[in-house]
Every structure is written in C-alpha cells, then in structure tokens.
C-alpha cells in the first residue's frame, strides 16, 4: 500500500541571491520542514542536470534552481548555463513520461531583486499544482543490492 507522503521541493539556489545566508536558510527549513530541501551553490552554473535528476529520483517531487537575474551573473553566464541544464533534465523527464514542470528555473528580478524567502514562496506556490511524484509514490523498483 502506498504511504501518504509530504510533497518535497529540492531547491538549488545561487548564494548571491539576497538574504540567502545560513540564518535565512535555517529559518526557511524551520518554516517548511520536510517539504523543502535547500542546496546553496556558489553559482547556478554549478548546477548539473544530474543534480536535478538525482533529487527527483531519491526524494523530491520537484527540483528547481534560483539564479541571479539574466545579465547579472558574477561569472557572466552561469545562469544561462543553468537554464540549458534544466532543459536537458526536462527532456529526460519527458522521455520517461514525467512532467517537465517537475524541474524549473527562476531568475531573480533585475531591478528589485527578491530575497530567497520570497522566491521560495513563489516556487512553492507554483509546484503546488503538481501531483506527488509517481516515482516516489510507487514501491521501489530497485531489486535488492548488487553487493
């Protein structure tokens, strides 16, 4: 029988997002409890498609990344690369019959950059329309251990 499980968002974010230090992160983890797993990265260009897929495979119903505004990446094109990697992860999901919307990217606003907390809230609202992941709701497909 399928157990009832809390919807979980894996959220990768560039550490240059305003108000995204350790204190703010801990406050968000306290607020959202097990429905949010935060992964600070030095630049969104560090994100690989593999990170998103692994998160969806192991614990997350959706996996998103928050980037600096376009044109404002301190490494010039990290956020542009992140967008491509999200697209690649989306292609893999579509190929196995999962919704592309389980991965996504949100770029901060150029004029009025938002805080990590504000952006997290927006993403949480966006993914609320998704059903729990069929990957995590089914019993495991892994047959024992090879070791």
């Amino acid at each position: 029988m399928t157990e009832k499980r809390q919807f979980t968002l894996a959220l990768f974010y560039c550490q240059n997002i305003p108000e995204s230090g350790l204190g703010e992160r801990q406050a968000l983890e306290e607020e959202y409890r097990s429905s949010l797993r935060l992964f600070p990265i030095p630049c969104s260009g560090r994100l690989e498609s593999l990170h998103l897929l692994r998160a969806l495979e192991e614990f997350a119903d959706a996996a998103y990344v928050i980037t600096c505004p376009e044109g404002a990446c301190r490494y010039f094109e990290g956020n542009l690369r992140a967008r491509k990697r999200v697209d690649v992860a989306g292609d893999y999901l579509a190929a196995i019959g999962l919704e592309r919307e389980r991965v996504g990217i949100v770029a901060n606003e150029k004029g009025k950059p938002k805080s990590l907390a504000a952006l997290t809230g927006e993403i949480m609202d966006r993914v609320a329309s998704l059903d729990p992941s069929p990957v995590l709701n089914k019993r495991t497909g892994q047959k024992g251990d090879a070791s």
Partner: protein
Amino acid sequence: MITAEQKPIAEIRKMIEPYKRILVVGCGSCVAECAAGGEKETGMLASALRMAAKMEEKEVLIKERTLDRQCVKDFVIQLEDEIDRYDAVLSLGCGAGVQAVAEMYPELPIIPALNTVFLGETKDQGLWVENCVGCGDCMLFFFGGICPLARCSKQLLNGPCGGSMNGRCEVDADLPCAWQLIIDRLERFDALERLEKIYPPKAWSRKQGKGPRKIIREDQQRV
C-alpha cells in the same frame, strides 16, 4: 576523437526490457569529451531508467560505473569484481567500446546506448565536426591539412566543383568550401603547385573491402 550521440530513451528501454539486473557502463574518453557517454551522462541515463522502472513498479536493479576507457581491455577488466552480479550491460561506449566489453564477457548481452557517429574535432563548446574519414592513406600533406574526403560535400580530390561561391559550399551554404580552404592554405605556404597534379580516384581498399582493419606494431607488443 570518436563522436557519438545517445540513442532515444524509448529505444534504450525497449532493448533493456528483458533484463532485471543491469550495469550501465560509461566511458571517460572520447564519448565523455562529446558529452554522450561520460560519467555525468551515465549517471543521468541510469537515474532516468531507475525512475522509469519505479513508475512502472518494475523490479529492476540498475547500477552505474564509468571506466576511464572502454575500448581497452586493461580498463574493461576493472568490471571483473562485479560483472557477475548483472544479467546485462548497457554500454555508453562507442561501437569499439561496446564490442571490447562484449568480447571480454561473452556470456553477457552488451547493449549499446549510443550511436557512434564520426571521427572528428571539438570545434567549439558543444560543437563537434567530422574531419577525418579514416581512409587509411592520409593525403593531408597534398591538401594543406584540409581533408577533401571529409570536408568537401562531394568528396572531390580534384576540386573545387563549379558550385563554390564566395568561399561557401553549394550543398550547404553554412559550410565553408573545403576546396577554398585548401587553396588558401596552400597559397599561404607557397605550395599551390601540389594542386597541379591530378589525383586519381581514392583506393578505398585501405579503408574497406578486406574485413576489419588491423594495425600491428611488434615494438608495442608483449615480448
């Protein structure tokens, strides 16, 4: 280097369908460079296949491992410690890698996850172009380092054709005319006289027609 592209996931899933314990094996050499079968791509494919299996509630074990080089037995042998736990290998090696693993483990089905495409050069990030057909009788000296067999759309050895316009190829205007490049290069080296010779049709017997080719170097072999 050898370039390759991943097969569609639907095709891969169909091929692995009968198997319950699958080792996904990547290769850290050429196919890693062209982002088709390196450690990252192996991880992504294995992850996607595991998710697909979970969604369908299939009892399948899918593990992954990337070898430094899949076409050399000295590297393939590293699978020895775990290969007997699986009933199939899904290889992200080039065609040579798949066959090297298959020869070493004849009792196991070795399934290709990639389509091997061509011998080429990394031209830019995310751009690979064919520039060698492996003819077995390199003529780059005569053509200023530009191979007309690989880079001229018509494979002309005595070009250019009448369709070259402003240095572009008439078959595909996005391509530079290989013969324009050849002439420019030879001119730079004051070696245009190399083109005064008529080059006879290529002797393809050094590439094909005698079965798989071999290179034997006794000085490199075991004593």
